[in-house]
């Protein structure tokens, strides 16, 4: 009797688990229907597909999928069919490294797009570099990933297989500082970060520039990203007399933080980086988010001529989730891999060479094409040469661009 019920429960649970998997995977199948025969090249995707940051991660996955489908439809590379394999890193470095190992082991994977988080990228870079597998991130903004840990003094590229289409914090943080000090005329800020690679790095570059401009940092605080109760921090912010709060981190914490700071009675704007530039931030921060600011990499995808087609195609493809802050960059990341594959295949008489991974990595260094986000090419560190960024403000429940900048250093 007891055993029977146990068996029944186990059976029910496993049936449930299986169905869950089936339900979850129904949209990630991709179309294998291409009948061109020939070789199949897999583009790996690593992003947080579940959890807090899944809104951004799913946008990345869909955009890469769109790039692969577009390449197949246009027969961009003769005799090569692209497909994608998406791995979920849950924004955890350990999961990211496991995914990297799995992607390296899959011999058809010739390029990887991702990850979202700089901290995850740190754990993946070496795995990919050892396998000479090219990795293009649409969203990592930590300068150390391409320019070495001593980037502020001596730039040295740590891994030659790592590229990114996003602009670094070395530009984003100071740009925010300039905006806050000069345009928003705030002289006293409270700086908060979440202690993660991305958040702490961004808060650091912001603080440095803000002090150089003559502003005062009236307080600093590091929050626990697992918590949702920031009332103690909010009270500190209120009593510090700050005119603005800079937050280095992502929207799942930034939203409640903004809300709780305002609820504590400090009617001051919260400013953050591209990690808070998401519709979910406004949803979580509520009505009092009006006036909050975010810098994000690139000109707004909607404003670029080259993005028109992407937006239309993305819509036509019927993806459930919005393309999000990094959709255009993810598409360009995938496309740079596709261009590299094309170059390698063309050079090798229409076939993939044996050392395809190394050749594709080398070819990625020299790609140049007009992408969704403008001209896409990489400098000697693997950073995007196109460095635009935009300040957005929350107005009437939506992000609105208030200032754009171009870096031409």
């Amino acid at each position, binding site marked *: 009797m007891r055993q029977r019920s146990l068996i029944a429960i186990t059976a029910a649970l496993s049936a449930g688990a299986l169905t869950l998997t089936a339900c979850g995977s129904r949209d990630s199948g991709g179309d294998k229907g291409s009948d061109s025969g020939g070789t199949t090249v897999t583009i790996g995707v690593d992003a947080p597909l579940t959890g807090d940051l899944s809104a951004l991660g799913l946008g990345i996955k869909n955009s890469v999928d769109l790039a692969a489908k577009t390449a197949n439809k246009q027969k961009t590379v003769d005799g090569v069919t692209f497909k994608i394999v998406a791995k979920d890193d849950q924004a955890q470095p350990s999961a990211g490294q496991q995914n990297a190992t799995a992607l390296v082991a899959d011999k058809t994977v010739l390029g990887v797009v991702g990850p979202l988080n700089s901290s995850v990228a740190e754990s993946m870079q070496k795995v990919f570099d050892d396998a000479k597998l090219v990795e293009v991130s649409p969203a990592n903004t930590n300068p150390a990933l391409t320019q070495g840990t001593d980037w502020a003094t001596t730039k040295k590229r740590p891994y030659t297989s790592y590229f990114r289409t996003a602009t670094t914090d070395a530009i984003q943080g100071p740009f925010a500082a300039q905006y806050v000090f000069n345009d928003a005329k705030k002289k006293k800020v409270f700086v908060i970060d979440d202690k993660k690679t991305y958040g702490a790095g961004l808060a650091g570059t912001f603080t440095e520039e803000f002090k150089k401009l003559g502003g005062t940092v009236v307080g600093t605080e590091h929050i626990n990203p697992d918590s949702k109760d920031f009332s103690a921090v909010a009270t500190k912010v209120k009593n510090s007399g700050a005119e603005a709060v800079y937050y280095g981190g992502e929207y799942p914490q930034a939203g409640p933080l903004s809300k*709780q700071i305002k609820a504590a009675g400090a009617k001051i704007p919260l400013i953050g980086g591209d990690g808070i530039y998401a519709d979910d931030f406004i949803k979580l921060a509520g009505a009092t988010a009006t006036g909050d600011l975010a810098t994000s990499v690139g000109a707004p995808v909607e404003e670029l001529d080259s993005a028109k087609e992407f937006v239309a195609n993305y819509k036509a493809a019927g993806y459930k989730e919005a393309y999000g802050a990094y959709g255009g960059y993810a598409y360009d990341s995938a496309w740079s891999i596709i261009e590299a594959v094309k170059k390698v295949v063309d050079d090798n008489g229409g076939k993939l060479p044996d050392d395809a991974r190394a050749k594709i990595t080398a070819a990625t260094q020299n790609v140049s094409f007009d992408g969704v986000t403008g001209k896409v090419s990489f400098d000697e560190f693997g950073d995007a040469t196109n460095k635009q960024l935009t300040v957005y403000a929350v107005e009437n429940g939506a992000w609105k661009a208030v200032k754009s900048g171009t870096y031409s250093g």
Partner: protein
Amino acid sequence: MNELPQQLVNGLLLGSMYGLVAIGYTMVYGIVQLINFAHGEIFMTGAFGALTVYAYILPDGTSMAIALPLMLVGAVLVSVTVAVGAERFAYRPLRNAPRLAPLITAIGLSLALQQAVWAWYPEAKSARTFPEIPGGPFKLGDVTIQTGDIFLLIAAPISMAVLAYFVMKTRTGRGMQATAQDPDTAKLMGVNTDRIIVIAFALGAAFAAIGAVAYGLKYGQIDFRMGFILGLKAFTAAVLGGIGNIYGAMIGGVVLGIAETLATAYIADIPGMDKFGSQSWADVWAFVLLILVLLFRPQGLLGERVADRA
């Protein structure tokens, strides 16, 4: 301006929420010696139950005065159903199994509940907004209290009083005490221990549901992972207060909440300690406090000596 009163209130509010959830841990432990690690998720399902009532059952724009009691009912209903279901189908079949089996079942159940909400609740893959009580904040001298917090400030003591009355004065309550002291003898005395166990699970779930509604009102958002950390904190509060003791759970919660808040607010002001004072260190200080308490009072603040249970 003096920050201390506001920070104490912040801590009290956070702690009351820990306390409401901790009661579930402590009651279940007191009666079946099971640490129900799925309790955090029972709390979470309660929040989604309340949201379901508000977002999918009530017509749009229902005033919170009407909606709130119905949301509470919804939350309690869902939480209690999940908890009783868990007891019946996951824990009861394992009652004669070694201790480790139900514990691992609890952890598995916790993951299963999280994933079920993630997969099947509409738009629950990221946080969902929770309705808020309109009305400006209230000011009492230096202290600002949000409308959402008022609910917690009222609900926590009332729930506590009702629970105390129930356990001390009613027949079922005395049955619970008896079962906690000695299940075998209680059974011989005619106490239906199976029923008592179900009631303990249900009561704990009901308190978690009240806590969950308070959480939603306070933070304005709920997500499928909200129960995990809060559940751990509540469990800590239950241990701090003395696991098995319902007053201990509430007091442990409040002490833990205030400790975390004060650590965030003031440790950084101590010379040389500025590195260890941020909110990300608050948990560390809370656990230092827990260790200190357990060093001097291994049974927790209000716990009884384990030997009493023989």
